[in-house]
């Protein structure tokens, strides 16, 4: 037996480099909904799991076909999702099948096997063991994963002198400092917009940014409290404000203190009209109002918000206090600085970096690249080879979230056990496997590790619920249930009813004086901190408030631009504390004067510039004294919209309640869109791209006006340019009953279905593009080249087999997800019934966090679309043209008087 094993190991290690197919122990993953027994292979199965962002999870259901994940949907039972997703969750599929991902374990760039690596690891750690791990450091991003935290804790037990650091370039340090100061301990704050009547956002883009945005957007739009926003850069949240003020970061700080002063929390230094008015509004809604500060705001602003919430009695009501969700809440910037100091002191011999790209995104003053080089043993694991990977000695490809067992907690602490939906396409390893290898278990699978941990944890969970975990079957039942549901019941962070310290007001320092040109660093709407750079689905999404794609720009207001003598597209050199970066500027309507907003995450894949180059620990989220040096260069920005003016054209005129006539056909499909509920977050666009095999075209083609998105969100900024009113208008094919595109097609490639769909027959299309010209909504897209990748094998796995992959030379456009209608029709026919209302959910509708899109059968008197149309005034886009679109837009009735 021993000899046999040896031989087997030999063969395996010899084959490992070729990506050998090893016989795996059976690990059962569980589909969501139906049981998996004996299903037809073409029948899609949905598995519950989660997608990570900044350490927090969003519960999703991943549709797999014949073992191949093809679409991400929200998990309706998961508290962070409630059935919807954000654009990031959708786009994880692109990276799953991305051949550009790191594929092989490397040592100094040379391919190695896992066995090589673990052998090396064992030797390296043996040295460390001798000195209690004094020279060992682990650097992770923010960790909420209970299993990972447990593993790290175990490792630290074995190496007591080792240290664990966490760092993310978009950490939540200021907020953490504030709660620590206020409560004397770590807590998390959860906002209950469903309980709020009035919300004041101090530069907090809670509707579109962060781990809770999907849930918050849903709660907010179902309740629609009055929203007052003060911010520097227009955000989706700001675009939904009833009253929106623009202010530079310093002014926001001053305003927060003025607001606190109006509440009588601190003595007033100067009166601010707006603040007084907002304070009065807040006071009208004691206990049912929320003041929240953006993650990038300084601790002062967070403290002010806390003090106001406390004063208004919101804490525990509209603002809940919970146990922290992170495994080890930490001031991450300080943590990284400590690591840097340790490296300087020569105390770090071995640095294991799980994920992230600190070389790239650490504060510029830390010069992490130079410091990293001083560490002898450098291990890095990540999805893609990034700047840190290239400096590491060993690089281990990080398994994709859909390839591995893991766990993660949502913003409210609810844990999800992440299931692998496909075996690793390449040699990816999870953090769990890497840490197990560090503990001398190189062959431990993620499955074993997860179950090991959760077996222990289940006991305490059950205990908390007042039950006992009697036997192994109980654990199996718990395990199966948690996998099936996509979350661990009862794992949400505990609500706390604690009070902040009484002298909270004393912590509030008087505001700093106004500064010269300020700069604010923010996450990018599509590539976040850069982790999604290169993800073509995300890169190609036009950013909600600028409509730029594939790159960023330095955003500023018209007034600031003209003061500096700049126009959109001018390339300038920004200088801050002796550091410099070149960037094109973009004038953004509604941006605050006296400040420039720079977004992080670009400059890595060719597009955009790296704002991180002038970002230092001292000015991590905002800084002042930015110098602008003009250059002679111009840069053509890639944008999907020329400008945001309405040109005096009414888009949605009138608005009336519509009683739908029942047609002679069985179904009459129709759609209702509520532009008021749209935040422009792009989740629908990403979902449409994923569902309908829409190929990204790249920056060059996009700049030529050839983006292929079937669904776009038009952004209009009405009114004065310094204080515009923003309108997000999702526009896809509106399925005109008198469709102008149809009669002009010479071959009859676009025709109307009896049920009211404007259908496109790709096979019949010869590509005259007349239909696209004659479409007043300009929703038709043309394949100028062979955009869809039909040759890269792994890319072909991405395609939804229910939708034709289009070839060069044909027109395409929104089909209202006709494949989903067909699937529902077949399901209904099998059971001999009509399709039920809500059974057909278009991809965009399914992803939309705010439920702004409703699709259904107008022939069904009880359907939501029909009731909405009858109950609320609506208008068709360009109704005067007489095209009679089946998609209607709800027209807002004036809110709040």
């Amino acid at each position, binding site marked *: 037996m021993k000899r046999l094993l040896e031989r087997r190991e030999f063969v395996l290690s010899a084959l490992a480099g070729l990506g050998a197919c090893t016989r795996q122990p059976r690990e059962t993953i569980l589909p969501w909904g139906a049981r998996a027994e004996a299903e037809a292979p073409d029948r899609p199965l949905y598995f519950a799991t989660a997608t990570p962002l900044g350490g927090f999870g969003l519960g999703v259901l991943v549709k797999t076909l014949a073992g191949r994940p093809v679409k991400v949907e929200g998990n309706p039972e998961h508290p962070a999702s409630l059935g919807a997703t954000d654009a990031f969750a959708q786009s994880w599929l692109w990276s799953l099948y991305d051949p550009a991902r790191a594929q092989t374990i490397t040592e100094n760039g040379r391919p190695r096997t896992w066995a090589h690596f673990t052998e090396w690891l064992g030797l390296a750690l043996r040295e460390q063991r001798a000195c209690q791990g004094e020279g060992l450091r682990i650097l992770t991003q923010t960790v909420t994963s209970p299993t990972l935290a447990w593993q790290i804790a175990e490792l630290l037990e074995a190496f007591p002198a080792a240290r664990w650091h966490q760092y993310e370039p978009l950490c939540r340090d200021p907020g953490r400092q504030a709660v620590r100061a206020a409560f004397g301990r770590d807590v998390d704050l959860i906002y209950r917009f469903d309980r709020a009547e009035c919300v004041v956002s101090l530069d907090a883009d809670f509707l579109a940014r962060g781990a809770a945005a999907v849930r918050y957007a849903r709660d907010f739009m179902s309740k629609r409290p009055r929203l007052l926003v003060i911010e520097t850069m227009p955000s989706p949240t700001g675009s939904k404000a009833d009253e929106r003020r623009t202010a530079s970061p310093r002014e926001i700080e001053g305003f927060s203190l003025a607001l606190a002063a109006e509440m009588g929390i601190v003595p007033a230094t100067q009166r601010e009209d707006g603040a007084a008015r907002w304070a009065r509004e807040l006071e009208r809604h004691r206990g049912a109002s929320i003041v929240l500060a953006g993650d990038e705001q300084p601790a002062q602003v967070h403290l002010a918000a806390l003090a106001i919430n406390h004063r208004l009695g919101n804490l525990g009501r509209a603002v809940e206090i919970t146990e922290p969700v992170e495994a080890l809440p930490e001031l991450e910037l300080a943590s990284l600085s400590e690591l840097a100091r340790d490296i300087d002191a020569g105390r770090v011999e071995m640095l294991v970096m799980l994920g992230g790209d600190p070389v790239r995104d650490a504060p510029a003053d830390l010069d992490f690249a130079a410091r990293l080089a001083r560490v002898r043993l450098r291990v890095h694991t990540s999805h893609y080879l990034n700047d840190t990977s290239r400096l590491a000695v060993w690089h281990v490809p990080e398994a994709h979230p859909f390839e591995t067992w893991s766990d993660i907690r949502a913003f409210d602490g609810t844990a999800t056990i992440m299931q692998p939906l496909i075996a690793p396409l390449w040699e990816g390893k999870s953090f769990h496997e890497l840490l197990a290898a560090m503990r001398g278990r190189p062959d431990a699978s993620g499955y074993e590790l997860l179950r090991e941990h959760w077996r222990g944890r289940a006991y305490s969970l059950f205990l908390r619920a007042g039950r006992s975990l009697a036997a192994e079957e109980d654990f199996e039942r718990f395990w199966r249930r948690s996998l099936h549901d996509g979350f661990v019941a009862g794992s949400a962070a505990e609500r706390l009813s604690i009070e902040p310290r009484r002298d909270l007001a004393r912590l509030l320092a008087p505001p700093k004086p106004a500064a010269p040109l300020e700069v604010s660093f923010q996450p990018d709407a599509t590539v976040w901190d850069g982790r999604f750079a290169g993800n073509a689905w995300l890169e190609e999404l036009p950013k909600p408030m600028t409509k730029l794609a594939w790159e960023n720009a330095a955003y500023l207001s018209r007034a600031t631009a003209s003061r500096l003598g700049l126009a959109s597209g001018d390339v300038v050199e920004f200088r801050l504390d002796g550091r410099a970066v070149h960037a094109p500027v973009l004038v953004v309507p509604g941006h605050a004067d006296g400040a420039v907003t720079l977004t992080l995450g670009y400059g890595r894949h060719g597009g955009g510039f790296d704002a991180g180059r002038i970002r230092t620990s001292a000015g991590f989220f905002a800084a002042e004294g930015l110098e602008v040096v003009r250059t002679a260069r111009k840069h053509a920005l890639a944008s999907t919209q020329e400008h945001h003016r309405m040109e005096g054209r009414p*888009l949605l005129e009138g608005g009336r309640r519509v009683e739908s006539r029942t047609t002679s056909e069985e179904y009459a499909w129709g759609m209702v869109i509520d532009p008021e509920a749209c935040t422009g977050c792009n989740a629908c666009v990403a979902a449409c791209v994923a569902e309908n095999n829409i190929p990204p075209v790249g920056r060059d083609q996009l700049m030529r*006006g050839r983006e292929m998105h079937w669904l776009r969100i038009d952004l209009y900024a009405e009114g004065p340019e310094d204080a515009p009113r923003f309108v997000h208008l999702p526009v896809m094919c509106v399925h*005109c009953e*008198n469709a102008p595109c149809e009669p002009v097609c010479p071959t*009859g490639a*676009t025709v109307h*279905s009896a049920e009211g769909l404007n259908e496109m027959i790709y096979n019949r299309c010869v590509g*005259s593009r*007349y239909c696209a010209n004659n479409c007043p909504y300009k929703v038709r897209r043309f394949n100028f080249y062979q955009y869809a990748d039909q040759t890269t094998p792994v890319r072909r796995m991405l395609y939804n087999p229910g939708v034709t992959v289009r070839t060069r030379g044909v027109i395409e456009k929104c089909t209202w997800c006709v494949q989903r209608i067909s699937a529902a029709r077949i399901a209904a026919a099998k059971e001999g019934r009509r399709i039920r209302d809500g059974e057909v959910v278009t991809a965009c509708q399914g992803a939309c966090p705010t439920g702004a899109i409703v699709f259904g059968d107008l022939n069904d008197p009880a359907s939501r679309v029909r009731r909405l149309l009858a109950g609320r005034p609506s208008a068709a886009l360009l109704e005067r043209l007489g095209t009679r679109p089946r998609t209607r837009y709800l027209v807002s009735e004036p809110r709040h008087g």
Partner: protein
Amino acid sequence: MAKGALAMPDAARRYWWAAFGIASVLVLVLAGSLAVLLWRGLGIWGINAPVGWGFAIINFVWWIGIAHAGTLISAILLLLRQNWRSGVHRLAETMTVVAIGCAALFPLLHMGRPWLFFWLLPYPNSMGTWPQFHSPLVWDFFAILTYGFVSLLFWYLSLLPDLAVLRDQARSRRGRIAWCLAALGWRGSARQWETHRMACWLLAGLATPLVVSVHSVVSFDFAVSLVPGWHSTIFPPYFVAGAIFSGLALLIVLVVPLRALVGLGERITESHLDAMAKVLLAAGLVVTYGYAAELFFAGYGGSPYERYALANRLSGPYAPAGWALVALNVVAIQALWFGAARRRPWRLFTVALAVSAGMWLERFLIVVVSLHRDYLPAAWGIYRPTFWDWATLAGAAGWFAWLMLLLVRFLPVMPVAAASPQREPAAGSDDTARAVHPGTRPYGLAGVFTTAGQLVEAVRRARVEGYRRLDAFSPAPVEGLPAVLGAPRVRLSPAMFAGGLAGAFGGLLLQFWSNVIDLPLAVGGKAAASWQAFVPVTFECAVLGAALGALAAMAAATGLPEPHHPVFAIPGFERASRDRFFLLIETADERFDSLRTRDFLERSGAQEVHEVPG
């Protein structure tokens, strides 16, 4: 090279070679751009969303507009008996045919999948599909097809006697055979001339509404849509006028240098140019009226979109093109009010060149500037032509020039019959008597006359003598000859009418069968049987049917094509296309007697009498 067709001085020949060289390079550029286009896709052009149509459609409309001048001059001026047309109509017709060849390239190439262009043709197929006859592009397809066919027929028909001239002048046997086949065996018989005259006349009548319809249909591509700047009822007349305007302009651009180079000054006189300039001015004024009407309706109509579309032409990103259009198409032609501009060839040339460029710009404004900003401001875009757009534009111009250069060099640029009825006999014309095969019955006896008058007189006398099986051959139609020959009247119109009726019914039936009965599609919320959409194709089919009817009747009446005929064996018959008149009396005639008939012919003034071998 055809003598007498185009006497080309050495200097002109050098210019020709230079021009031909440049044109050949441009043809290579065209071939290269098309290869790249087919290999890589339409993405090599600057088109995008919202500007789905770019240079290809502009070029198409421009060339098809130019193609209207030929028919205008040949047909309309023929019907109006404008004699000045005679000097330029061949050139104009040639230009038409070549321009259609250029124009037809673009609708094909602009398609996303050009290899499937035949899907626009109605033919039964295994997919069970038909073209969608509500689409102006299908109307366009039929219109261009019909126009191409009729123009070609018209051009060829008028060329036929001249091809016979080339045949008779050919020095080599191979050339003679080739020209003989091209001339279909034309022998200049009285009946052929009569049929020819009538066919030209009738085809002119047919082509006149056709030429109006074709550019109207082209304008429907735009007018039927709802794009602001396209959706307008003024478009058909405005397009037709624009077509004539641009076609005449290009004709002048071609005529002036040609006239200077090859010494056609006596054939195309300053008064010819003057007449053309006047028509150019008139067409330009109609076009200007069209602009004014567009402005008026945009302003008066109350649609903010239309108003913006018009304002955008003169104030938007493409404003320079808009103002250039005004300068070239409206301001420049005002010079033609003055005789000094009309009668000085190079001044006229300059104005015409301006108009040619201006009309291209007009199509640029209509196609691109209307599309780039339509209804939703968020969907606006900009169009920037790429290298390949320009290469294709230049290449197509080269292709036009290349074909024109070849045709003017090798085909008579003027109708020969009109050019030199009394030309010197060609030196060295072979007079070898053909051997009469003994034992075979001869076909007849032929008398050779030197003037048309002698011939008519001889025919009249032969009729009096009782001869019935007569035929007369002349280098040009001879007034009164058919009457004295007593031949039955040539009637082409019944066949044309029948053909037209069959075409119309066939076309209508085809559309109803395919789009209403066999494959009714729900398009645009319209009833499948909305007959209004079937009118253009029905009309084009009627014209095509009539033209085919004329062709058939012509073939029946003349017996052409008939590459061999016994009369070709008459010694010196090649002069029948130049300066001799022949009277043939067949042996089949009841009164034929070889001696008496020979005697009769000699008495009638025949210079020579030849026996025609059977």
